[in-house]
């Protein structure tokens, strides 16, 4: 074996124009961005204020930036799949050979779930939770930075497979035995394993961090039942992360051992059980669905309450429903494979358990409905996304319960009906929630609101495109069309596939409008500036501090007293802050910026890359260096910066002065 393991020049897909052009384009774009930063001399600023930042707000923003970029990448994959498949109707060959098409749908799922939807949700939680709790940062700020950079490292590895070697051709969950070395000897599954493993460890760290933050560091007096709903859903989603991600880590480790060291956990031969892989991956995978959707439920709760001008209806009932979903989500995984033939009793039990989850979701929907009842509804962009969610998510939930009926699932499993269902819930649940949250909290992060006109255009176009695409796919599923077909043998499916391509075109316009909104808003930022820190008449503590919040979030920590209901906390906090004179401020100690996370993640990328290509010496070197970074971090004796009382007072006066 050579010094570079399996890596040689043939890893670059010279003969495949599409990945080559895509990879080349991405590299050119990255070089251009890096060049621009260098020419403008922004490196010191980026390094000091962002890359090494341990501020939960900065890290939250970086998570969302990563997520937005990956959502676009995953969307491009989706455009290719839909157009290619439509071109193969009636015997056409399309433009993607099977080995490429299979990589694209695998990458689409992997990127959208692990590096699009997940970072978006974790980013929102990171940014919002400490502000809503009235605290200065998360419980473990440096762990937070490490968690983010590990996620970014995973995303980088997936995208690297575009230009070096190949990505998995197995689907986004690499079912054994197809993913075993005997049926997937290429590096594709290895890229998947190391990228998801590294990113997954990052997610686990983020989950531990958020759970600890919520459980241990709430503002004085903020009992659990005074927390905003978003904190509750963040807590539940993070508890799910802590409980479920170790299953993913263990499962992928077992598959890695199978592939690298000839173990037989999931192989056909020597007593391995591929069915065990399917069980384990869904034992993580079903809670994962709720990890994605619960924070979005929290966003909708905040947005609907705010723009109804009312507190959330049935708060305690909502908390109960969230906890109910959290627990039951661990008891339903088998509904992903009723067709494995486990028997009528097992299927019926899991089918009933699955439909029981719908009770919790149903309760939430009615409580949102009654939040609107008697309110004074305003319809800015975040509210539109929330109403769009309410309307479409009910349909997605209904088709989900249809799939939970085993005898119906027997004809819908792995059909385009299933594909339409999970896009229906993930897009109109998680993605609509992510965009609603992004629009809602953007002014908090940057001090100016996003352009409403482009926001509304983006909403209506995306909603229309989404309904057309997945409406057509629902029907195609009922017409017997199954998923992941590189070409279609039944010509009558053609019209439905063409309709879905038309829907994709509308969605492209929606995404373009969303990007335009950001560009237009940055250009018009002076006109859109919000000096009040509370542009929406919000109901929780994050709106009690200026926008963007100072590094320490609150000059004086809000106190949540007595029996007052949670939604009055904000007003009291604002009042008490305004009463303060300069002498009331006290010095604030904040964690010092640290490169540990970035350096560790850099070496994690090196390890992952080296393991994919079996460059053993490089993997060992990466491991030693990553450990070295940890030791160097542990050796530091100064971990904190202190803002003096005068400094705090000055920052606070400047911000309040701007608002006055």
């Amino acid at each position, binding site marked *: 074996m050579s010094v570079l393991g399996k890596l040689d020049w043939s890893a670059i897909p010279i003969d495949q124009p599409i990945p080559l052009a895509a990879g080349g384009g991405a590299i050119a774009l990255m070089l251009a961005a890096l060049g621009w930063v260098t020419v403008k001399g922004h490196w010191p600023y980026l390094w000091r204020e962002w890359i090494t930042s341990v501020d939960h707000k900065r890290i939250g923003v970086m998570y969302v930036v990563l997520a937005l970029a990956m959502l676009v990448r995953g969307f491009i994959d989706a455009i290719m799949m839909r157009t290619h498949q439509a071109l193969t109707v009636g015997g056409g060959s399309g433009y993607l050979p099977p080995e490429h098409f299979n990589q694209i749908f695998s990458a689409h799922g992997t990127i959208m779930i692990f590096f699009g939807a997940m970072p978006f949700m974790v980013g929102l939680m990171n940014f919002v939770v400490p502000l809503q709790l009235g605290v200065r940062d998360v419980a473990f700020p440096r762990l937070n930075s490490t968690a983010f950079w590990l996620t970014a490292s995973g995303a980088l590895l997936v995208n690297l497979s575009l230009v070096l070697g190949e990505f998995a051709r197995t689907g986004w969950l690499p079912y054994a*035995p197809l993913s075993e070395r005997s049926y*997937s000897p*290429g590096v594709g599954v290895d890229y998947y394993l190391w990228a998801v493993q590294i990113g997954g460890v990052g997610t686990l760290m983020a989950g531990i961090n958020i759970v600890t933050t919520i459980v241990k560091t709430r503002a004085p007096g903020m009992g659990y039942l005074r927390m905003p709903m978003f904190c509750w859903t963040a807590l539940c989603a993070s508890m799910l992360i802590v409980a479920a991600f170790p299953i993913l880590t263990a499962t992928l480790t077992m598959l890695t051992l199978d592939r690298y060291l000839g173990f037989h956990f999931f192989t056909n031969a020597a007593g391995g059980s*591929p069915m065990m892989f399917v069980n384990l991956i869904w034992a993580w995978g079903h809670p994962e669905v709720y990890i994605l959707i619960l924070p979005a439920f929290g966003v909708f709760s905040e947005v609907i309450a705010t723009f109804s001008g*009312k507190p959330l209806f049935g708060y305690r009932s909502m908390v109960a429903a969230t906890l109910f979903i959290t627990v039951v989500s661990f008891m339903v995984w088998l509904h992903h494979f009723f067709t494995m033939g486990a028997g009528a009793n097992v299927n019926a039990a899991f089918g009933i358990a699955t439909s029981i989850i719908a009770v919790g979701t149903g309760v939430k929907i009615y409580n949102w*409905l009654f939040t609107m009842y008697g309110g004074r509804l305003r319809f800015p962009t975040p509210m539109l996304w929330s109403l769009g969610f309410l309307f479409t998510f009910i349909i997605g939930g209904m088709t989900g319960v249809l799939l939970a009926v085993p005898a119906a699932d027997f004809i819908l499993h792995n059909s385009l009906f299933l594909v339409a269902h999970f896009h229906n819930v993930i897009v109109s649940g998680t993605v609509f929630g992510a965009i609603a949250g992004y629009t809602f909290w953007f002014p908090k992060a940057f001090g100016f609101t996003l352009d409403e006109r482009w926001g509304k255009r983006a909403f209506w176009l995306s909603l229309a495109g989404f309904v057309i695409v997945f409406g057509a796919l629902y029907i195609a599923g009922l017409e017997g069309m199954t998923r992941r077909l590189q070409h279609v043998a039944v010509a009558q499916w053609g019209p439905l596939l063409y309709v879905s391509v038309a829907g994709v075109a509308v969605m492209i316009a929606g995404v373009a409008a969303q990007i335009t909104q950001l560009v237009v808003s940055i250009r018009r930022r002076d006109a859109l500036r919000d000096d009040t820190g509370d542009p929406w008449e919000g109901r929780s503590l994050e709106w009690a501090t200026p926008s963007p919040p100072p590094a320490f979030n609150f000059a004086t920590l809000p106190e949540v007293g007595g029996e007052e209901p949670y939604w009055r906390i904000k007003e009291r906090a604002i009042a008490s802050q305004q009463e303060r004179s300069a002498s009331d401020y006290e010095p604030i100690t904040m964690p010092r910026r640290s490169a540990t996370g970035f350096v560790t993640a850099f070496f994690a990328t090196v390890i992952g890359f080296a393991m994919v290509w079996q460059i053993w010496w490089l993997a060992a070197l990466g491991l030693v260096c990553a450990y070295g970074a940890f030791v160097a971090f542990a050796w530091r004796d100064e971990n904190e910066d202190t803002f003096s009382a005068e400094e705090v007072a000055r920052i606070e006066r400047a911000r309040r002065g701007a608002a006055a």
Partner: protein
Amino acid sequence: MSVIAPRVPRAALALALAGLASGCSGASVLDPAGPVAEGNRANLLSALAIMLAIVVPTLIAIIAFAWWFRAGNPRAKHRPEFVFSGRIELVVWSIPLLVILFLSGVIWIGSHRLAPEAPLGPAGRALEVQVVSLDWKWLFIYPDEGIATVDRLVVPAGRPIRFRLTSASVMNAFFVPRLGSMIYAMNGMETHLHLQADRPGRYYGQSAQFSGDGFADMHFTLQAVPPPEFARWTAEIRGTGRTLDRTSYRALAQQGHAARGLAFGRVDPGLFGAIVTQAIPPAAGPKPAPGGQQVSG
């Protein structure tokens, strides 16, 4: 297969969905051609009817509430302190619970009546077909007739078929949409499925579980013929010279589509059992290629 939902909504639904089924692809799951598919569809429509009863009013309420309580409507009563009502909570918990109660009945009864392993009709009447999924084609063995075919499944109309399924290599799912239920085919495992085609006809079949590069070509035709014609057909296949034994199976199990349409007049009777018990080792996959790639075949 009986139906659990009330007759009227079911008829209305069937009408509404008839539009879908009529322009149909010949593979529509809403256009059943056998008792199992009818049962599947009935379950689907019953569950849909039960849920629409609650979903439709909710959708209307969302639009109505959002419209009526808009900030610009002076006639809407503003109730900013309306944040809890025990009665409403009772209702919003009990409505979904009741729906799920109904649905649980549908789920329980349906999954028992339509259990893939449950025989259709009296024992001994069914035709046994052994199915082996290969990379990337389907091998159908008729043990009683002593014949085998590739990607071509001929069955007598009106007679139950008892499928015993396994896989030579990776997972696949055996699916004939118009006949109903699908089931996984897995190496080292044997799964069972019972189907029946009521009328003669040609039905599209496809693997529904992704299995590698040649997956999209893993479709086949299930042809239901009148029983006398089935007898003629088996005799005809038996007349062809080819024998399916371990040697020819090994060649067949290699990746690719070259074997499509092949038929065997004689079959080693222990072959299926040997595949299931892995007495014949699992078939090989693609070969590694330079640059971290892999090539099939």
